[in-house]
């Protein structure tokens, strides 16, 4: 079975952001400024588990700059069997649809992929659109917010998953191939292993370009993007006031608090 896990290198969860002259910068004084998108870790773990159980390949795929190789190395160190970087100046500034076009083309180029896994969203853009857009571009079934894989039957070509929705859980049976986006309830991602770290640092990660994927100009990158990042500004800081409610009893404090919340139309 061939499984692909798509990952994005994002700012670390502890990064400190600043905006200057319309551009956003970030750094992390305690560690690396960029990491594997935390939601993707669950997808990577699942790809490795499927590979361990059913054999075949667990291929990590990332679209980004040369720096994204770091994220791909983490995937290899965790246990992915292969990693591919998609990098081309023409892809820079892509919105989610442009990204989806490129990822779909790369997945199609790999041939015989049965499952493409994603984290439910990336912590930077936070849209959660890319997995579904990739599914549409490939013509595969999208299974979003997956919290459990109940059965995977490569012979029958079916998969049964559990989806975590606001109202509860839903069990879905779909025919392969599928695109899956996962939530953190799915599994417990492993750490990179020491042997994996060594393997990852010695691995050659191939780079695929627009030419390799036959992506026509104007269908990805900044020119095709509906999102404009050319001028980023910081949100104005919120004015907040702290009010300590004082009263003789807790009950009285609670009564005043409820009245104040009504007044402010919070409840």
């Amino acid at each position: 079975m061939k499984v692909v896990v798509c990952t994005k290198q994002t700012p670390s969860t502890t990064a400190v952001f600043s905006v200057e002259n319309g551009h956003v910068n970030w750094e992390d004084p305690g560690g690396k400024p960029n990491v594997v998108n935390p939601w993707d870790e669950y997808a990577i773990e699942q790809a490795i588990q499927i590979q361990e159980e059913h054999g075949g390949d667990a291929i990590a795929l990332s679209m980004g700059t040369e720096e994204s190789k770091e994220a791909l190395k983490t995937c290899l160190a965790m246990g992915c069997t292969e990693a591919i970087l998609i990098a081309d100046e023409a892809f820079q500034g892509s919105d989610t649809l442009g990204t989806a076009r490129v990822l779909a083309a790369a997945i199609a180029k790999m041939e015989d992929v049965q499952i493409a896994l994603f984290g439910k969203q990336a912590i930077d853009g936070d849209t959660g659109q890319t997995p579904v857009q990739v599914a549409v571009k490939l013509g595969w079934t999208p299974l979003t917010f997956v919290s459990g894989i109940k059965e995977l039957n490569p012979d029958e070509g079916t998969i049964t998953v559990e989806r975590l929705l606001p109202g509860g859980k839903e069990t879905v049976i779909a025919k392969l191939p599928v695109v899956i986006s996962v939530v953190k309830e799915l599994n417990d991602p492993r750490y990179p292993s020491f042997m994996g770290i060594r393997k990852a640092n010695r691995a050659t990660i191939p780079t695929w370009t627009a030419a390799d994927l036959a992506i026509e100009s104007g269908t990805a990158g900044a020119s095709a993007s509906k999102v404009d990042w050319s001028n980023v500004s910081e949100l104005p800081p919120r004015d907040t006031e702290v009010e300590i409610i004082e009263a003789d009893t807790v009950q009285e404090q609670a009564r005043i608090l409820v009245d104040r919340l009504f007044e402010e139309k919070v409840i």
Partner: protein
Amino acid sequence: MLDFSLTDEQISAAEMVREFAEKEVYPTIGEYDRKQEMNPAVLPRMGELGILGINIPVRYGGQGFDYVTLGLVCEELERVDSTLRVVMSVHMGLNSMGLLQWGTEEQKHHFLAPQARGEKIAAFGLTEPGAGSDVAALRSTARRDGDDYIINGEKMWISLATKADHILWFAKTDPDAEPAHKSITAFMVEADMPGVTSGDIHGKLGVRAGSTGWVNCKDVRVPAFNRIGHEGEGFKIAMSCLDNGRYTVGSGATGLIRASLEASIKYAQERETFGEPIAQHQLIQQKLAYMQQWYDAARLLYLRAGWMKNEGIRNTRETSVAKWYATDMSFQAAHEAVQVHGAYGYSDEYDVERFLRNSRGAIIYEGTSEIHQLMQAGYALGWRRDKPLRCELPAYDPEYWQAEA
């Protein structure tokens, strides 16, 4: 040419260990510290993840990383809690690396490989109720009896006393020998051998989430196969084990300085007095500046020792100065960190209280600061020179280390 850079492999390995310590140990460390118990998941997880065999060659069950990585790992572990690094000091520095240096090929396969895989936990039995810095005064005995030795004696202040399967035990084969240290011999005592008993000590100032205790041998029959090195070679073995144990203590204490610095930077920017964050006050800044200086110097000292180990250069003096400096300064840094935190630093609500208690022990164990001062003075005066050993710690050879066999 000097090169201060670390390899991607070294950095990634340290990051992995940091993630483990932060995610799996930190959340409950306060609770276990207060209970004076070791988190039962720690040793199995460190074994599973390969941390217990990080710098042992793959052919002996290890992960094949170098000695510098061991130092980085210890720094990350002690940044979260000293008890984690203590595991590395006794299991790896004082026992496994002793086997790597002095064990026969058969002993490496029999004892070292299961230790490196984390299947067996290792400890170091040198200190006795009446013998600490004065090693030659130890009273444990080992009497030859056919193909075996009969061991009697008691060891005290032994880290992992009740958790260890293999204890590197130092005993005298001739209690009347002169000079006394020349009859010390090393044995691998196995905890399940009849006559071995152990217990934990409670009421310690620090490292409360770890196991420290006593081990007693009463007429314990140990096969001659378990003797490490020759008869009478035990003192040299103990000292070379300390060259490695002290390296883990020094690099770990460097992590404790970093932890104190990080906690102080965070608190100094949050806590306000006189209408501004205390980081604005120059005397607080001075404390942060010193902690940074201590951290940088301690790190450079241990990395130098690690580099020398990689190169196969004798490093007794350099390791000693790294251990002495880092442990003294980790106590100082924790003390200043408590001061930065004010009254809150005095309660276990904040980590710095634990840092201060944990830092104190390392100024005593694996050579008190006074012993290290005597050593440094001895080298400076030319009274002390390191003679070549029959078995030296092997230099790090990536090809040999990483090959399956």
